[in-house]
């Protein structure tokens, strides 16, 4: 297990290096002079030169990358061209709100999605199954920004029960995490159902039933246990999806998180912040995927010993 863990951890390094080269190169891909673009139309020549020096655009490209990579390792991500604050400070302040939002959304979505999926699989073909799957396909198709606005309209504007947006108390978490989790719950419900149905048609399940194993045990021990493997992978992938969805939900609910920072940065062409955010998101995806694979290895010894 330890050697597997080490091997996987080492495998993360080249991916992160590749992403850092990509993120570094992305400012170079921009049409025109990035320093001039960032400075804005009414900046003086001296300002542009200062920004160029700030980004070390006046040095050879490998030196620039070297400086950038050193900065990444030491936490020096440059300064935001919009607020002039260090990027690390900007991102640090926004990190926890997004993390909490995604954790709450993920928590309810996983429980609701998997439960619905299993119940649907057990009641396959009956009206409960059909109703759940209609709900699930609607959940996948529902634009989260519209759902957010509808919830605000009902619970904040009309009923006045919950705040329309912002961050602070537990009341602020209810609508955003509900909105963010809907699509994930729907995807997981569909996926869990199909994994469950697939396993349920296997011979060993029929055998278990034939030899008189109680139905509850057939479902829990024989079917669910084996259906869980692909579901765990899917759940991990959905965590990454949530980080994307957070961009929209944070904008709807004026949530002071990474997603809204990303949208603002793109609108203002604040490249140091965009670069840092892409780097951070990539790191998160890589770690999530690693985590999923490790859980997988714990559950399924076949992978561990290969």
């Amino acid at each position: 297990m330890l050697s597997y863990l080490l091997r996987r951890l080492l495998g993360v390094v080249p991916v992160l290096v590749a992403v850092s080269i990509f993120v570094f190169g992305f400012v170079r891909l921009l049409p025109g002079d990035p320093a001039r673009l960032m400075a804005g139309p009414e900046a003086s020549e001296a300002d542009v030169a200062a920004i160029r020096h700030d980004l070390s655009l006046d040095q050879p490209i490998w030196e620039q990358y070297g400086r950038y990579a050193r900065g990444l390792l030491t936490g020096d991500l440059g300064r935001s061209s919009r607020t002039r604050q260090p990027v690390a400070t900007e991102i640090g302040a926004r990190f926890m709100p997004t993390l909490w939002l995604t954790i709450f959304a993920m928590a309810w979505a996983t429980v609701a999605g998997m439960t619905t999926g299993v119940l649907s699989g057990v009641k396959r073909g009956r009206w409960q199954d059909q109703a759940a799957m209609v709900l699930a396909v609607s959940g996948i198709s529902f634009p989260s920004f519209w759902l957010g606005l509808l919830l605000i309209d009902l619970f904040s504007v009309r009923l006045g029960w919950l705040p329309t947006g912002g961050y602070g108390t537990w009341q602020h978490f209810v609508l955003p995490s509900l909105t963010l989790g809907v699509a994930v719950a729907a995807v997981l419900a569909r996926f869990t159902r199909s994994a469950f149905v697939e396993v349920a048609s296997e011979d060993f399940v029929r055998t278990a039933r034939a030899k008189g194993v109680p139905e509850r045990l057939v479902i829990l021990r024989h079917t669910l246990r084996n259906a869980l493997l692909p579901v765990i992978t899917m759940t991990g992938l959905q965590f990454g999806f949530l980080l994307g969805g957070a961009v929209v939900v944070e904008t709807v609910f004026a949530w002071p998180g990474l997603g809204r920072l990303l949208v603002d940065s793109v609108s203002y062409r604040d490249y140091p912040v965009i670069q840092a955010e892409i780097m951070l998101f990539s790191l998160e995806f890589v770690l999530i995927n690693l985590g999923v694979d490790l859980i997988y290895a714990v559950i399924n010894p076949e992978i561990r010993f290969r």
Partner: protein
Amino acid sequence: MSATVADNRISSPVAEFWRRFRRKRVALVAGFIILLIALAAIAAPLVAPYDPSAPDYDNVLADPSALHPFGTDAYGRDILSRVIWGGRISLSVGVISVLVGGAVGIVLGLVSGFFGGWVDSLIMRFCDVLFAFPGLLLAIGVVAVLGPGISNVIWATSVFSVPAFARLVRGDALALKRAVYVQAARSIGVRPVTLMLRHILPGALPGVIVNGSLRLGNNILTAASLSFLGLGAQPPSPEWGAMLADGRSYLGVADWLTLWPGVAIFVTVLAFNLLGDGLRDALSQKLR
């Protein structure tokens, strides 16, 4: 006796597919709705009662009425007309991105599965990396480089449509290149390009069609999200996501501003998802 004759007749794959698909009532209705939306979008100049961008300052934020069934916005523009014209934008983005992403993905998948080896590893690692990123974030990254605007949204959604098609076609190509009929064609000297396009691609089409329908819905949703965030279609464009963004300041005052664009996105995306599900059921041998 006539029954036996009928039973022995080999129906074409298309006829076989239609026989099964015809029984998927939900998917048929979804297909019909898509057809209606597409027709309305194509015939927008004829169907829409007003000019979608013509302001009418005497009728600002008018309630839904016989004159304006969906009401008007803060500039007095007719919401119904804007929703109809918006269908053009959303459907174009969906169709173009799926065609471009699908074409690139199919070629990559065919090459990857057919040749194998380092070409295969290279293409598949590339797809893994693209796949690891959620589509919306990837699209925001592309827009960050190219700048906001609907044409850049099309590029962005095309890019992240590629890996799903590539993986799907690769899987089929891997299986089909060992099929006897492909081996036979190869043995009589059919060129690799012809083998891939004439003999392997048709076998991969069912998966491509199903994925195409689901992708279309997904890409329309992503494009609308980007426009809602202000990174896609720019005002005064009657794009559905952008209309929702405009209407959010009037929440509780003029709810129709957000209601109808929202309904339009939901119904369109739902229809493509239901159609995709129905196609998959009709095309897959295993019946769920």
